[in-house]
């Protein structure tokens, strides 16, 4: 969570002198992250405060006048058209070089001395909108900005006069440190980290003057667990109006829009101390009382953001005697809000249960600066300081007078939190020696109470550390002290050391090795790796013939596209092909990812590494099947596994029943390879033809690799012959190959190199052409011997398949 913080504001509570950049750099390395710095003065360069000494008429223009203006070192004649010019008035004088926006419109332009209707004018008296302050200082269009309220001498730089010699830091506060989410909190961090004094003091609550009759009021907390402290005070004599510039300016720098002085005070205190506050219009409260209770089911409230919310009994609210007037810790109600007519208010400073606030804002979807802080958990001890500060400011800027006692309903008594602290344990964690005195100093600078214990534990120093109230939630054990010491000491001051110690010997998971190996293999073989989402939609599952009912389902998917965990890599591939086939009419892709197989009941699904391979090409491409099968065979060979293929069952659904096989290792089916069913392909809107393979890498890896054995290089050369023969279309090559090997003992290798069909061969027939290699281990084969083998082979082929040699 980020906060915009004015450096000048922070400096009210810490005696830091360093330049803003230096503070940002040093604190970021030991505490909150100062992410960006925004210097505030640059837009106001070459602008000073001037006082109009005399007003003269312009010789050539009725609407223009000449203002003789004191700017400190000299007086200038400035031509000006402002209708509200008066002698003695303090104004903004823009000198040459200043960047102004003429009449508040268009781009910024650099001011140059000029002649206006024949009269020289060296500078310009500005309207608020011309220097970007139109919102803060509203005035009518033909007037200029009146600075008479400002108690500075003529010639003072405008940035200084308006407290804009400042830098705003954008600071990231981690969620465990709501105490730092304020000017005071940041000041405390800076003090500890930079070794300077933290000077903040709690405001003392002004008490009601004895002469005042208290206004009737009461506070009742019905839910002491959800509201652990509720403080309130009534203020009378309020004069509602715009806040003074200093207050507006600070809210503005923090990114908060000023509303009116009372509302601005609550926001100011929130930013300064970190405690959210609220102000109710006392006269709008029915029964002059506050009741903290649960909402009734169906109870409604109109909020300050103009919305109306329907509540239920899970929501904690602030009510008067009759109705809800605020949602506790989230937002106030419209009816009891402070308006221009308000004269009496109730300040609320309370502590609400973080979980309750979090649930409430989440269920109503209203996140505010208040809820953001309450949900992190605020200490009960913070409300007092905030209430006192608000009362003080209210007296100062809204003429408020205390008109009641301070009501204080507190259900949780203050409790001291203490932990032991052993410096040697901190050293062991940090990795270097740090003097115990240094550690103690660091802890103390952060507000911890440190006492050395008289008992010496095993000869080592031992401290008792008391946690300050603002750290009661994030400090949970001794370990936190070590972190505090280490960060303030500075991580940059620690050496960088490679770990020594024993190297644990662990086997790498064979599935992980196989995944990496397969990825490299298929990449080298020309395939492109895809990584698709693990999620899949119902529609995609159904198109690819998977039953969504047995798939792993998400309870809160982002969209319908991400409703299930995929049981297969195939549907993802199909949609990738449909996306790419337009620009890439053919392609070879693969993916190695987990698939998810649901288990019954309260058991995690199985996650299995799956390998998908696919080639696609135009409809006429007959080589797809052989390309995929070839790549797969090459991979299995590379991985020393022997697999068998067996035709898929005719109702395989996803697969083409005539063009697909299941892949077996031994008796275990590990996957399927082949063309996809045309109906499935069509349902994905795909025009090309696709052949794919998917198999379970987890099972594959578990199968035994064939031992690699060395075969001596033959001493005698092989004899090679090509043989082409015609068989019926339904004769499968595997059978032919079996017969070839079976009919000759000398045949060493068979390589099919062509399958051919034409009119001469005849319909329903095809020609196989193969390279045959013959080899004898003890002699060089003679041509006649090989001829005899060929005759034997042809005899068998003819007998078994009716094959005819093709001449």
């Amino acid at each position, binding site marked *: 969570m980020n906060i915009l913080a004015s450096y000048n504001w922070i400096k009210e509570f810490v005696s830091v002198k360093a330049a803003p950049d230096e503070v940002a*750099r040093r604190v970021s*390395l*030991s505490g909150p*992250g100062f*992410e960006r710095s925004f210097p505030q003065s640059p837009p106001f360069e070459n602008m000073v405060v001037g006082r109009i000494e005399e007003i003269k008429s312009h010789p050539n223009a009725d609407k223009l006048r000449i203002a003789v203006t004191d700017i400190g070192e000299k007086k200038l004649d400035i031509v000006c058209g402002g209708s509200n010019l008066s002698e003695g008035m303090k104004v903004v004088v823009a000198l040459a070089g200043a960047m102004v926006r003429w009449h508040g419109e268009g781009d910024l332009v650099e001011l140059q001395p000029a002649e206006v209707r024949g009269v020289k004018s060296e500078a310009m008296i500005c309207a608020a909108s011309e220097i970007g302050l139109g919102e803060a200082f509203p005035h009518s269009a033909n007037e200029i900005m009146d600075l008479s309220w400002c108690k500075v001498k003529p010639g003072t730089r405008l940035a200084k006069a308006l407290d804009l010699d400042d830098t705003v830091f954008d600071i990231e506060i*981690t*969620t*465990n440190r709501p105490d730092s989410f304020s000017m005071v909190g940041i000041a405390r961090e800076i003090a500890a980290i930079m070794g300077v004094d933290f000077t903040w003091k709690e405001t003392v609550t002004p008490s009601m003057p004895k002469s005042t009759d208290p206004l009737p009021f009461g506070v009742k907390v019905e839910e002491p667990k959800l509201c652990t402290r509720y403080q309130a005070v009534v203020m009378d004599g309020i004069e509602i109006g715009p806040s003074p510039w200093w207050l507006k300016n600070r809210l503005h720098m923090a990114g908060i829009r000023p509303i009116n002085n009372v509302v601005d005070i609550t926001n100011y205190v929130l930013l300064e101390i970190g405690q959210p506050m609220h102000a109710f219009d006392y006269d709008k409260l029915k029964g002059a009382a506050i009741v903290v209770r649960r909402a009734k089911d169906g109870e409604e409230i109109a909020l300050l953001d103009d919305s109306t919310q329907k509540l239920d009994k899970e929501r904690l609210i602030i009510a008067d005697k009759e109705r809800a007037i605020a949602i506790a810790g989230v937002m106030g109600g419209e009816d009891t809000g402070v308006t221009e007519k308000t004269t009496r208010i109730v300040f609320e400073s309370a502590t609400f249960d*973080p*979980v309750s606030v*979090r649930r409430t804002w989440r269920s109503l979807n209203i996140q505010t600066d208040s809820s953001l802080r309450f949900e*992190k958990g605020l200490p009960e001890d913070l409300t007092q300081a905030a209430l006192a500060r608000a009362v003080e400011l209210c007296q100062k800027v809204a003429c408020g007078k205390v008109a009641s006692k301070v009501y204080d309903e507190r259900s949780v008594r203050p409790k001291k939190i203490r932990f032991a602290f052993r410096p040697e344990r901190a050293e*062991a*964690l*940090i*990795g270097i020696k740090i003097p115990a005195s240094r550690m103690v100093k660091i802890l103390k600078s952060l507000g911890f109470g440190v006492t050395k214990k008289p008992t010496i534990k095993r000869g080592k120093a031992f401290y008792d550390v008391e946690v300050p109230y603002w750290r009661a939630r994030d400090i949970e*054990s001794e*370990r936190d002290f070590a*972190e505090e010491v*280490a*960060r303030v000491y500075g*991580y940059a001051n*620690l050496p*960088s*050391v*490679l*770990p020594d*110690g024993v*190297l*644990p010997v662990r*086997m*790498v*998971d064979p*599935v*992980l090795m196989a995944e990496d190996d397969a990825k490299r293999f*298929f*990449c080298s*073989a*020309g*395939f*492109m*790796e895809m990584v698709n*989402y*693990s999620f899949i939609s119902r529609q995609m599952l159904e198109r690819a013939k998977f039953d969504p009912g047995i798939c792993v*389902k*998400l*309870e809160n*998917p*982002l969209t319908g596209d991400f409703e299930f*965990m995929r049981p297969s890599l195939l549907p993802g591939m199909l949609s*990738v092909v449909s*996306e*790419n086939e337009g*620009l890439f009419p053919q392609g070879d892709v693969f993916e190695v*990812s*987990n698939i*998810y197989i649901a288990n019954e009941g*309260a058991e*995690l699904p199985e*996650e299995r590494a799956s390998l998908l391979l696919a080639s696609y090409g135009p409809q006429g491409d007959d080589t797809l099947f052989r390309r995929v099968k070839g790549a797969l065979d090459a991979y299995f060979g590379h991985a020393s596994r022997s697999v068998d293929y067996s035709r898929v069952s005719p109702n395989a659904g996803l697969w083409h029943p005539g063009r697909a096989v299941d892949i077996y290792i031994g008796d275990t089916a590990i996957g399927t390879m082949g063309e996809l069913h045309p109906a499935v392909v069509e349902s994905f809107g795909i025009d090309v033809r696709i052949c794919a393979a998917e198999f379970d890498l987890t099972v594959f890896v578990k199968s035994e690799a064939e031992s690699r054995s060395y075969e001596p290089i033959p001493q005698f050369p092989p004899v090679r012959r090509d043989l082409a023969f015609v068989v019926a279309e339904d004769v499968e090559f595997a059978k032919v190959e079996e017969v070839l090997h079976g009919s000759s003992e000398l045949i060493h290798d068979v390589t099919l190199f062509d399958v051919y069909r034409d009119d001469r061969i005849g319909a329903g027939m095809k020609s196989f052409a193969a390279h045959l290699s013959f080899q004898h281990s003890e002699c060089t084969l003679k041509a006649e011997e090989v001829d005899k083998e060929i005759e034997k082979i042809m005899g068998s082929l003819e007998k078994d398949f009716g094959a005819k040699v093709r001449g």
Partner: protein
Amino acid sequence: MKEQLFELKGRILEAVAVAGNLDDLERVETENLGRKSEFSSLMKGLGGLSDEERKDVGRLANEIKQEIAGAVEKRKGELKSAAYGALAENDRIDVTVPGMKPVIGHLHPVTQAIREVEAIFSKLGFTRVRHPEVEWDRYAFESLNMPGDHPARDEWETFFMDAPAHKEFGKMVLTPHTTSGSARELEKGDLPIRMMNISKTYRRQMDVSHTPMFHQFEGLLVDRNVSVTHLKGVLDHFAREYFGPDRRTRLRPYHFRFTEPSFEIDVSCGICGGSGRLENGDNCRLCKEGWLELGGAGMFHPNVLKAGGVDPEDYNALAFGWGVERTMMMKAGISIDDIRVLYRSDFRFLNQF
């Protein structure tokens, strides 16, 4: 006969001398010294000579033959060097025609990054493991010091599974971080540990800089006498190996429930050399003041060690982990303006890696 031989020698040597190319020379050689040559037939006449003469003429014939053979070799050498010398003109091709590329595939950029990360940490003895992506609340949160209603859980934007909760382990979720794997690793009780877990992780976020599925890697080192200085050592090692030898890291305090202390790691910017300023004086646009945010790290919280059955008084654990995608993009210096392209499998994207 001697005269005939001398005369023949003269003719042959001349023919050799005038042979204009290697083919001519070969022909001259065959015609004059081959089986059917004049020289051969002359030699056949040797039989009609007396022993003395035959000896004499035979020696001469041999000498002549040697001489001719020498001349042929010499001429051959001359002709070859002439031919090689003319290669540039006579045997010239267009060398600007494009090459015929072998078909090569592409590894997804995330895979490439994972392989590099794995290799770097394996040198320090970290062994890669795999743990479930669909995980119990117990490992994703509970044992990481984030009990039931802890607001810190909100930061993880968790996906829940539509499955019954486990009595002991709670709800079924998609793990939002690889730290769930560390929780499981601790539970194995096999100490010391040097683990590298690289896995898909999931969070309910999808915009130009978030995908609901992404990859994280997480290193875990559990041993006696492990300290923050070692965490710095390991991270510096990674930064130098992965990004380059002149890169540095720094630790900034941060907050995670499962580590204490917790850090964010920055790596010095490779563009501006860590100065935050370019050579022309402009601010570096890639980094913040010379540093790039890399990821989170810390020393495991004693509660996390306890939950995994490890005694925090005896052992410490350093852990670090962050997104593979981000790390990959920081190294490649490619700024992908919409990272969803990583998992869209657009070939025009994948082709580039």
